[in-house]
């Protein structure tokens, strides 16, 4: 790793001022699990790391008027083990629990994972299915971006130079919503997914009909993918096994998987259909009748 300067300010304002002052030569860091490896491999060579590790309260996790607020420096492990997350956002607890290993989950943070923009990561599809929003702050202002709009391309996000992703806001799922999160791992349990799928599904009370559904996939393209055509094919329709199968088939056109040692693009496309169907079936089984 080449030399760099390191600052660990004790307030967010101080961190934002440093980022404004140093522009693109500075990078934000928290857990470091992604950035430090990229620095060791010399894929990025920042002159200055601005650490968020000493900014107080930025790692808070709390439910506030039905919205779960995940602070940017909360670790994956903290999210996974938080009693309120486990009870009221089980989709998130399950997703974060299956990221890499305990050792990495003790280090990697909520905000770092999103800002990294790696399409193989597990939290983004789950956060998209839950309709979460990311809060971004800079020295000059603040804005919110839906997580589904955060990812622009391979390792490219809408987090602009000088901005810090400070918080993720997750609404409470609709009453009776069923959820699923599945991760196809044919190699090792700590691997990136070959494909992962998150699903949130609500039925019209007392019927077989779908009120709403959100279906999002990881490791299925250069960004996380929302399967909108599959969702549209289900809304208002009776959720029969055949209908779920037909909807899952539409995922094939939504994804554009990158071939790697986990499989060819064609293979991953097939697997995206299979695992989307399984996610839909699991979510339906969990949804209140």
């Amino acid at each position, binding site marked *: 790793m080449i030399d*760099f300067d390191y600052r660990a300010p004790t307030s967010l304002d101080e961190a934002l001022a440093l980022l404004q002052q140093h522009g693109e030569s500075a990078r934000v*860091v928290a857990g*470091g699990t992604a950035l430090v490896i990229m620095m060791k491999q010399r894929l990025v060579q920042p002159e200055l790391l601005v650490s968020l590790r000493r900014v107080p309260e930025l790692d808070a996790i709390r439910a506030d008027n039905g919205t779960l607020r995940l602070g940017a420096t909360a670790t994956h492990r903290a999210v996974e083990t938080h009693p309120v997350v486990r009870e009221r956002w089980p989709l998130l607890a399950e997703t974060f629990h299956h990221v890499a*290993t*305990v050792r*990495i989950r003790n280090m990697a943070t909520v905000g770092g994972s999103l800002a990294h923009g790696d399409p193989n990561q597990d939290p983004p599809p789950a956060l998209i299915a839950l309709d979460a929003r990311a809060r971004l702050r800079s020295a000059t202002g603040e804005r919110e971006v839906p997580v589904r709009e955060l990812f622009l391309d391979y390792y490219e996000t809408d987090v602009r130079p000088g901005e810090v992703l400070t918080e993720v806001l997750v609404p409470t799922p609709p009453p009776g919503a069923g959820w699923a999160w599945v991760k196809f791992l044919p190699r090792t349990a*700590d691997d990136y997914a070959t494909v992962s799928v998150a699903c949130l599904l609500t039925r019209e009370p007392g019927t077989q009909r779908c009120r709403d559904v959100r279906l999002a996939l990881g490791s299925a393209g250069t960004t996380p993918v929302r399967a909108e055509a599959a969702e549209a094919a289900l809304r208002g329709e009776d959720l029969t096994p055949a209908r779920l199968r037909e909807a899952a088939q539409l995922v094939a056109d939504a994804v554009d998987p990158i071939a790697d040692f986990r499989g060819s693009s064609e293979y991953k496309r097939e697997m995206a259909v299979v695992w989307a169907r399984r996610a839909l079936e699991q979510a339906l089984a969990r949804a209140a009748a």
Partner: protein
Amino acid sequence: MEQTIRLRINGEPKELTVRPRRLLVDLLRYDLGLTGTKEGCSVGVCGACTVLVNGKNIASCITPAVFVDGCDITTIEGLAEDGRLHPLQQAFIDYGGFQCGICTPGQIMAAKALLDENPHPTEAEIKEWMMGNLCRCTGYYKILDSIKAAAGSEA
């Protein structure tokens, strides 16, 4: 460019001057001579470099030492007390929990973090927790036996 950091390493306060690029694993091994901690993959995947930071198992090969300024660090050298091995260390000897030994410090530190949080884990919980610590000799059954034994002895 150099910075002064304060760490408590195996209970002992240390003030150290380091470049920000100095990794915790290198600080431990080369600056402090604590060579029990090993480096394997260098990218956080294999678990050989596992140490505890404020009680939590982390990968010291991807952690610049400046990141953990002010923290408590526990390495394999910090487990024995008054010349008596930690129950996990004793169990790894009694149950043959190592072959070549290079992964052992990391295995034991990961297991310590588990038992500190969950003193009586099920076999499934041990397997899931330890999944991130690779043994190139593939001696996983004996590692599992050792941890189960240590969990029993700490009851």
